[in-house]
């Protein structure tokens, strides 16, 4: 039987090609994700290994656990250590070098006069050059020795277009400084596109450790020193407020944190791989359903000569296994190719990832297993059907439909799931599930999606009948023929359309969420912001020099900043914003829920409604804050309902300064208030001129600010669309596949039509109409479902700033238009094949 199965797959390879391609695409995504993750982990491991080469580190004690959320980084949750400790550590026995970590933000101006920004959001680092540090070497020129000198890391030098000896500028501590490039520094590892600028140690200390505090101090051991003993000795010298940790442990800790972060990225990508595979499974199931039907007589003959049902079943599963394994093998290769392309693209942006594309046994094993499993599961139902059909019945000329009992059951189940899912969503949307709202929404959405998939066959006759009506009415008889073809096997049409539906549901939901978010952001800006202009930075940190320069302008009355730092709030790390009361009086119009904003003048904190609810805070409660430079308990003085400042807690600027060092604070936004009677247009020119030297700062009015925020949403949307595009591509393959196979099934019919005078173009049109109908049907179902579910979101997430529901009709219309295009594209190959059929061959086809 196995031999029969393999023969048959070889002689009908064409029928299986689409299935193989579907598995291939899904698996490519899976293996690509794994390979990418391994490669990125490897790159970051290298970075960790080379950037943390000391034998022992002294760092501050932990002030909050990582579990608080909000903070992904390494810093922000430990106290700082005094720089002075470095000298004491140098005296410890067996210490060869001590390197305090003097580091902070810096912006480098490149040869073209613009800021050198890191690729892909990688950070810009300024470092104090420590001649003692054994991990950095001067590759050319010399080390910086005075405030006017810098050295650049090799790839930073390349990216900046500067050369040794060139004069340029850096933005340091909020001010622009003239400097000269005096050297090129080489690091041992890949640096993933980050920008590194080295200052002399003294300048760096002044800039980033003026208060005499640094995040950590590295200690290098002399040859032959026992690390454990050194660790104990260092800890003894450093004292109780600090923690000594061996270099190996620190590296392991950092690596683990990075792994966790990459894990999130990987999980995110795997979700899309899962969607792709789910969609692929539909194609495989469809293919097997159709090939099984075409070969019904072959199976009947095998049964008639004594093959048992389980042998027939097994032989089909063997074919599925071959499809799965072949597809998975191709998928692994394609995944590696995908990552190679990605690496090339990233490389061209200056983000180097390490050498070889890793392909470990795990990736290969998982990919093959997934490919095989998906194929087996998808083929199981058609295989069972083939095995159980009595031989006599299968021998019969007309195809017998077996859609009785099972179809009714799945239809009923689909209806129950759809209604139940929709009900859960509505309950969640109307806030009747309390804490279960979000869960209800998610479960309801999934139930509704599966429900509609199950229900789809029942919707085909009516739905497609209605959809096809215009075509049937205007294009006689082509439209009617096409309608007959797509409705004659509802289950097949439904699962073909279902593949597209899944992707389109997600796309539709994403579109609604994105446009609603944009509208919400816009309405927040419009209702809350009363300032004349805002300053924002490309690095999300407006240099304080720019703020000062703007404040000094004649037509500017006041500049109000929103500064952000990471603090432990009641023991877990959160963004905390430092503000002045004036901000709420002049720049933002914010409804106060309880307490009053004068609390800020009294040194008290202000919380947003959602944060207050989440933490069960009342006005008058005491909240413990701890930062790297101190700790303090503040009273909650007011609760406000703002969406403009998206943070847990706001404290007076003075409080924030006491708890964190300036290097840790970033100015997220600066609000500019003009003097009375100042001309807005002139003022804008003045502002633009004032911030121009700071390169990364832009001046916006409220509208432009809203636009900028919308643009960020658009960027996310593009990535989502690109990822979902894969499932749409697979769905298109599914349509091609179904058309090709159903044309093969109707060969005689096509011959007959041609014999009574149907032209080739007309035949191709029939196929195209079928394709477009299927694709539009799937798109309408999917978009309808996605939009319906996404419409429930604003009521559930109103607290998180999701206030407006906007349904982007034009965009949804585009999706339907796209579905027509997709349908036409999918029809090309099957239509050409059908048109090429020889009339007589077709009529006598068996």
């Amino acid at each position, binding site marked *: 039987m196995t031999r029969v199965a393999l023969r048959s797959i070889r002689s009908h390879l064409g029928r299986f090609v689409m299935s193989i391609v579907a598995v291939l695409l899904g698996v490519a995504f899976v293996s690509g994700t794994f390979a990418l993750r391994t490669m990125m982990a490897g790159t970051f491991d290298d970075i960790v290994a080379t950037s943390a080469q000391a034998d022992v580190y002294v760092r501050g004690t932990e002030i909050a656990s990582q579990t608080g959320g909000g903070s992904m980084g390494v810093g922000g949750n430990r106290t700082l250590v005094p720089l002075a400790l470095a000298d004491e550590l140098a005296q410890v026995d067996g210490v060869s070098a001590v390197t305090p970590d003097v580091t902070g933000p810096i912006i480098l101006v490149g040869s073209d006069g613009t800021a050198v920004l890191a690729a892909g959001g990688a950070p810009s680092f300024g470092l104090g050059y420590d001649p003692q540090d054994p991990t950095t070497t001067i590759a050319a020129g010399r080390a910086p020795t005075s405030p006017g000198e810098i050295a650049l890391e090799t790839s930073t030098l390349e990216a900046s277009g500067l050369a040794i000896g060139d004069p340029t500028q850096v933005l340091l501590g909020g001010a622009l400084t003239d400097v000269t490039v005096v050297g090129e520094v080489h690091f041992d590892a890949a640096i993933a596109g980050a920008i590194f600028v080295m200052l002399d140690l003294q300048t760096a200390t002044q800039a980033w450790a003026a208060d005499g505090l640094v995040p950590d101090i590295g200690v290098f051991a002399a040859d032959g020193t026992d690390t454990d003993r050194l660790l104990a000795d260092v800890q003894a010298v450093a004292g109780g407020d600090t923690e000594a940790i061996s270099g190996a442990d620190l590296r392991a800790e950092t690596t683990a944190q990075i792994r966790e972060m990459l894990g999130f990225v990987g999980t995110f990508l795997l979700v899309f791989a899962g969607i792709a595979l789910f969609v692929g499974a539909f194609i495989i199931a469809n293919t097997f359903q159709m090939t099984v039907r075409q070969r019904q007589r072959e199976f009947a003959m095998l049964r008639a000569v004594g093959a048992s049902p389980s042998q027939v079943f097994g032989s089909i599963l063997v074919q599925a296994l071959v499809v799965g394994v072949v597809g998975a093998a191709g998928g692994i290769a394609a995944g590696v190719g995908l990552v190679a392309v990605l690496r090339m693209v990233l490389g061209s942006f200056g983000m180097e990832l390490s050498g070889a594309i890793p392909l470990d046994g795990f990736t290969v094993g998982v990919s093959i297993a997934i490919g095989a499993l998906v194929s087996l599961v998808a083929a199981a139902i058609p295989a069972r059907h083939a095995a159980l059909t009595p031989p006599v019945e299968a021998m019969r000329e*007309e195809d017998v439909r077996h859609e009785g009992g099972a179809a009714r059951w799945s239809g009923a189940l689909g209806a129950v799931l759809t209604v139940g899912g929709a009900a859960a969503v509505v309950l969640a949307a109307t806030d009747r599930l309390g804490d279960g709202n979000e869960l209800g929404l998610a479960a309801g959405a999934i139930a509704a999606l599966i429900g509609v998939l199950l229900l789809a066959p029942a919707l085909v006759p009516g739905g497609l009948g209605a959809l096809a009506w215009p075509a049937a009415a205007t294009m*006689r*008889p082509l439209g*009617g*023929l096409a*309608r*007959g*073809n797509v*409705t*004659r096997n509802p289950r097949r049409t439904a699962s073909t359309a279902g593949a597209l539906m899944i992707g389109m549901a997600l796309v539709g939901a994403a579109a609604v969420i994105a446009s609603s978010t944009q509208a919400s952001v816009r309405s927040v800006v419009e209702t809350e912001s009363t300032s004349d202009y805002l300053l924002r930075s490309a690095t999300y940190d407006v240099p304080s020099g720019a703020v000062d320069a703007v404040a000094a302008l004649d037509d500017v009355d006041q500049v109000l900043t929103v500064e952000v730092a990471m603090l432990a709030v009641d023991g877990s790390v959160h963004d905390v914003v430092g503000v002045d009361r004036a901000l709420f009086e002049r720049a933002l119009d914010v409804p106060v829920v309880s307490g009053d904003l004068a609390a800020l003048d009294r040194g008290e904190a202000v919380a947003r409604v959602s944060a207050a609810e989440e933490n069960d805070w009342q006005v008058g409660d005491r909240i413990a804050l701890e930062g790297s430079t101190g700790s303090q308990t503040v009273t909650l003085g007011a609760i406000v309902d703002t969406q403009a400042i998206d943070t847990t807690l706001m404290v007076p600027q003075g409080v924030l300064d006491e708890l964190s060092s300036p290097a840790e604070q970033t100015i997220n936004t600066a609000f500019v208030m003009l003097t009375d009677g100042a001309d807005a247009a002139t003022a804008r020119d003045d502002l633009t001129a004032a911030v121009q030297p700071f390169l990364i700062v832009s001046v916006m009015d409220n509208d432009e600010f809203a636009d900028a925020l919308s643009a960020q949403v658009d960027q996310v949307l593009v990535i989502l669309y690109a990822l979902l595009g894969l499932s749409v591509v697979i769905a298109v393959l599914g349509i091609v596949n179904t058309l090709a196979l159903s044309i093969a099934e109707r060969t*005689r*019919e096509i011959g*007959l*039509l*041609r*014999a*009574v*005078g*149907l*032209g*080739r173009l*007309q035949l191709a049109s029939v196929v195209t109409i079928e394709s477009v109908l299927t694709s539009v049907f799937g798109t309408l179902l999917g978009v309808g479902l996605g939009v319906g579910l996404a419409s429930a979101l604003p009521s559930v997430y109103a607290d998180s700033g999701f206030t407006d529901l906007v349904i982007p009709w034009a965009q949804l219309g585009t999706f339907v238009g796209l579905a027509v295009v997709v349908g036409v594209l999918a029809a090309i190959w099957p239509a050409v094949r059908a048109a090429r059929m020889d*009339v*007589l*061959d077709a*009529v*006598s*086809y*068996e």
Partner: protein
Amino acid sequence: MRALAADPSTDAQIASARGLVKIYGTGAAQVRALDGIDVDIARGELTAVMGPSGSGKSTLMHCMAGLDTATAGRILVDGEDIGAANERRLTKLRRNRIGFVFQAFNLIPTLTAAENITLPLDIARRPVDQDWFDAVVDAVGLRDRLAHRPAELSGGQQQRVACARALVSRPAVVFADEPTGNLDSRSAAEVLSFLRRSVDELGQSVVMVTHDPTAASYAHRVLFLADGRLVAEVEHPTPDTVLDVLRDLSGPARGAHTSAPTAARTAEPVR
């Protein structure tokens, strides 16, 4: 035998062939399905074609209806040179001037009987002449079955629908390849008398292949093929005169000949 027309394009014949040759395959597997056929099909007559299995009857129908291209020879249908026509031209011809009825599988399963009947007109975007449609439908006696799908019709009814479809576009000539091959004698009689009436009452020209002497007796004229050649002809046939000719043809001398093409046919690859 009737004398061949000196000029085949005159009005007396609706279709004619001169020196028609059709060769399938190459080398050792070569089959001369039609081996030099000269024939005139008279306008307004029902012509039957008979002959042993493998004698080339279907091939002749296919070539004359423009469904297949001849290897050599000239075919005129209603004054149109079929051999010289390209695919577009042939499609047009099939649509407007030629009706065809196959032995089986004549109908589109997704269309109703009425839709199947008007299919050629719909394809050609020609309006349906309601009087003619009614005449044809009444002639085949399917008035109460028009809304049914093929699966809901008996074999005889299906073939009558197919005949109605072949006639509804008022083609110049209808070719029917064993239209009653799958039918019992009663259903066969329904279809045959309809075809004859379409000739007598509606003025159609019909060519039909059959193996059944009774069926052939409905015709004005019967042509006999053997080994791809036209070997005999009977005017105003009765079942008995047809049987006599058949008995003559399948004499010992012929038997040896007919077995060879039959073997070739079974050797045809299964598709």
